[in-house]
C-alpha cells in the first residue's frame, strides 16, 4: 500500500495515509481500529479490489505523533475532514473498526452530507446502558491474556501476540498508549453521541460485529443498529476485530452494501440534477 503525507489545516498537522485500489473507483475512507493501521492491511487490500481505499493513520498510531492537546476521538474528526479536503474527496463511504468506527460516527455527525454510507464494524463510542453498568469491558489495564480472550475469537490472531522483537515491543507500547490516551475517560464513549446520532438518519448505515465479541455488553450492536436504523451483519469465527480475523469475509459482507449505497446515492443526486 503506497503511503503518503498531507498537510491539513487543523493543528497544522501532517497526516499520514495509505492509498490503494483503482483511482476511478468510488472512494472509501477506511478508519483503522486500536490495533493500528498495519493490523488491518489485509482487510484494506481486500476492500481495494473494488474501491479506492484511503487509510489515514490515526495520529499516534503506526509510528505517527499524537496531536498536542487532543485527547478525545471527536477532536480527531477535524483532521479527517481536513484530509478529505486535501485529497479533493468530496464524498466518501466511511468504513471503520472499533475506535475507527467511533471516529466514523464522529465524522458522520459532524458533516453527514460528506458521507455516502457509514459502515461501523464493532463500533465503540456510544454508551447505551445504565450509569452503574460497565459500558465496555476493561481492556486498558487488564491482564493481556484476558484481554486477548475478550477481543479475539482466535487469540493466536492477535497481531501483537509475538512481540519478542524490541521494535515490535516499542510499536506495541506506543499503540497501546495512544489508544488509552484517547479513550480513557469517559471510558470508550462520548456521552453526547446518543444525542447526535439522529443526524445520521438519512445516511445508509451498516453495523457489523463478530460472533464472539467480549468487549461490548450483550445485545449492544443490535441496539445501536436499531438507533441508527442500520443494516446488520455478523461475521463468523471473529471476535471484536472481524477486519483482522476474517478480512476477506468482512470485506465481502460490506462491499455489496457500500456499492448499493453508492449507486443509490448517485441516482438520487442524478435526480436532483435533473
Amino acid at each position, binding site marked *: 500500500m503506497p503511503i503518503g503525507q498531507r498537510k491539513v489545516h487543523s493543528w497544522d498537522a501532517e497526516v499520514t495515509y495509505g492509498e490503494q485500489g483503482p483511482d476511478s473507483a468510488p472512494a472509501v475512507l477506511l478508519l483503522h481500529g486500536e490495533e493500528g493501521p498495519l493490523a488491518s492491511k489485509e482487510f484494506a487490500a481486500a476492500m481495494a479490489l473494488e474501491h479506492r481505499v484511503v487509510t489515514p493513520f490515526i495520529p499516534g498510531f503506526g509510528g505517527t505523533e499524537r496531536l498536542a492537546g487532543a485527547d478525545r476521538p471527536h477532536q480527531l474528526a477535524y483532521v479527517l475532514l481536513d484530509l478529505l479536503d486535501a485529497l479533493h474527496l468530496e464524498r466518501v463511504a466511511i468504513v471503520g473498526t472499533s475506535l475507527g468506527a467511533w471516529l466514523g460516527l464522529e465524522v458522520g455527525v459532524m458533516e453527514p452530507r460528506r458521507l455516502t454510507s457509514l459502515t461501523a464494524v464493532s463500533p465503540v463510542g456510544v454508551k447505551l446502558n445504565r450509569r452503574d453498568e460497565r459500558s465496555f469491558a476493561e481492556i486498558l*489495564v487488564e491482564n493481556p491474556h484476558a484481554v486477548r480472550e475478550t477481543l479475539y475469537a482466535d487469540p493466536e490472531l492477535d497481531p501483537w501476540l509475538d512481540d519478542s522483537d*524490541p521494535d515490535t515491543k516499542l510499536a506495541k507500547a506506543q499503540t497501546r498508549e495512544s489508544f488509552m490516551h484517547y479513550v480513557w475517560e469517559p471510558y470508550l464513549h462520548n456521552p453526547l453521541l446518543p444525542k447526535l446520532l439522529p443526524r445520521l438518519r438519512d445516511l445508509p448505515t451498516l453495523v457489523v460485529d463478530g460472533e464472539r465479541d467480549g468487549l461490548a455488553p450483550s445485545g449492544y450492536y443490535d441496539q445501536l443498529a436499531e438507533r441508527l436504523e442500520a443494516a446488520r451483519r455478523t461475521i463468523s469465527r471473529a471476535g471484536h476485530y472481524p477486519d483482522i480475523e476474517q478480512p476477506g469475509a468482512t470485506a465481502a459482507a460490506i462491499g455489496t452494501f457500500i456499492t448499493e449505497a453508492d449507486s443509490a446515492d448517485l441516482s438520487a443526486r442524478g435526480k436532483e440534477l435533473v
Partner: protein
Amino acid sequence: MKTWFFSECPYPDLPDPESYDSIRVSLPNSLYDPRRGAELYDVYLDLWQAADELGLNIMTNEHHQTATCLVPAVPLLASILARTTQNARILILGNPIANRRDPLRVAEEMALIDNLSKGRLEVGFVRGVPFEVLPANSRPTGMHDRMWEAHDLILKAWETHDGPFSWEGNWHYRHVNIWPRPYQQPRPPVWVTGTSLTSVPEIARHGHTMAAFVTGPTVARGLFDEYRRVYAESHGGATAPDDRLGYGVQVFVADTEAAAREGALKLRWYFDANKVPPHLANPPGYSPPKRAAAAGSAAAPVPQARQAKGQSFEWMTENGVLFAGTPDQVVEQIASFHAAVGGFGHVLMMGHAGPMEYAETVRSLELYATEVQPRLHELGVAVAQ
C-alpha cells in the same frame, strides 16, 4: 539529621496470597473487618503520638483501594495529629496531586492543617503510583505536567493575599482566594518524591526537599547527585544543603541483634505482601513507551523494593532497604549510607509494617530516639539557612 517516623497503616489480616491476584486495587473489601480496622487506626495514631513524645518527627502518606495502606485521605489523619501531637513536625508525603480532581482543595486542606498544628506541617507532593490510575480514573499520560501544574496552582493559592486570581489550564478556577492562608509564611516547606533522573531537575530548580524511597545507595546517589547538580546550576552555584535530601527506609532497633532480626522480618511484610500483577504495575502511558516496552525484559532494572521480597536480613541491610540491629549497628549503617550517597538530611523511617504490634514498634522507636538519633548529629548535616 532529622528522622520522620511512619507506618503505611496496613491491614495485615489477609488470607493466603495464593487466593488473590493482587493486594491492591482489586482485592475485595469483604476481607476488611471494620472492628479490627477501627482498632488498627487507634494503634497507628498511638504510634505517631509515641513518636512525637520521643522527639521524633512524623510522616504520613496515602494510597487507594489497597490493604497495604488504610489511609485513602491523608489530610484526615494529619489533621488529627495536628491536634494530638505537640512538637513533631508533620510531613505529608504525599498528596497525589496528578490524580486529584480538585487541587485547590489540597491547598485549602494543607493551609488548614498548618493552622491546626501552629505551623508544624510540611507538604509533600507525589505523582501517584501506577496502580492507582484505575482507582483515581486518572489518565496515565500527562501526569508529570498535571502534577507540576497542580503544584504551581497550590503554591500560588498559598502565597496570594490580595484577593482572588483565576486559573485556566488543565484545571479551571475562576476564583481562587483561600481562607485560611497557611500559618507558616510564605508557605509550608514543600517535598517531592524523586523517582527517576528525569523527575529530579524540576524539584531541584524549585529548591524543594526531595525524597527517595528504598532505592538503595547507588540509585539514591544518582538521584542526589543530579539534584545537587541542578540545584547549583539554578541557584547561582550554591551547594544544595543536605537537608534538601531525604531517604525513605525501613528501620528497626532492638536491644539485641537477634531481636532486631525478628523485628526486621516483620517489617519485610511491606515487601513480601506487595503482590501486584504486571498490568497494574505498568499501565499503558504511565511510563514513556520506551520504558514501558522494556519493563519486564531481562535488561530492565528491577526496582530495589521489588527485589527485597523474601530477602535475608543481610541482603536488606547491605542493599540499603533496611537499617536494623542494635543502636550501634544502626548508627553505623546510617553513617555508611550517608557516606555512600554523598550526604543527606532526613531519614524517613518506616518503623512499622504488617503485623507488628504497638509494644515492639515503640521499643524500637525509644532506642532510636535515645541511642541512635543523638549520635546522628556527628554526621554533620548541612542545613539550609
